[in-house]
């Protein structure tokens, strides 16, 4: 019963992440919006799957995937944003596009 509620919450996150990709016209805001909302959706779905499958070897493996995603997904976003920053793109110049 709990996992159904968590899955419904994650649908809301995924749909708003998709809206956030197409709604803004500044590149940094798109980076902020979509990737962050998507990380929250990922964590929510994995918690729901752990609650559904109970305590066995399946849920231990899912916990491992969750720790892996919580470490590597911020690194991906950080390095995409850093390569845009070091290439000299500033906030004001991008808004007009």
């Amino acid at each position, binding site marked *: 019963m709990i996992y159904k509620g968590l899955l419904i919450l994650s649908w809301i996150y995924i749909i708003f992440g998709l809206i956030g*990709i197409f709604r803004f016209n500044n*590149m940094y805001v798109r980076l902020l919006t979509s990737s962050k909302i998507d990380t929250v959706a990922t964590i929510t779905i*994995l918690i729901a799957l752990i609650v559904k499958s109970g305590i066995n070897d399946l849920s231990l493996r899912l916990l491992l*995937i969750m720790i*892996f995603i919580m470490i590597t997904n911020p690194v991906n976003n950080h390095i995409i944003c850093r390569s845009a920053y070091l290439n000299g793109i500033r906030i004001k110049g991008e808004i007009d596009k």
Partner: protein
Amino acid sequence: MFLIITMILLIIAMFVTIIRMIIGPTVWDRLLALNLISAKTILLLAIYGVYRNNILLLDISISYGIIGFIGIMLLSMFIQRGGRLK
């Protein structure tokens, strides 16, 4: 039932993200779309593994995560140096 709806929603979300990848004005938009698709692939495999109650699919999910991480890291380091290989 709820798992099937979640999987269909994830596939639709991946197709919508591909549109962003095609029309994206800058390179970093395309990298962002690649990042989103890679995260959603991990999720799709994990949900399918729980739905089938098969533990081997979760291993494939972990290895897809590693491949996506290394790919995005190398591509963005390559762009950061201005496209030179050195």
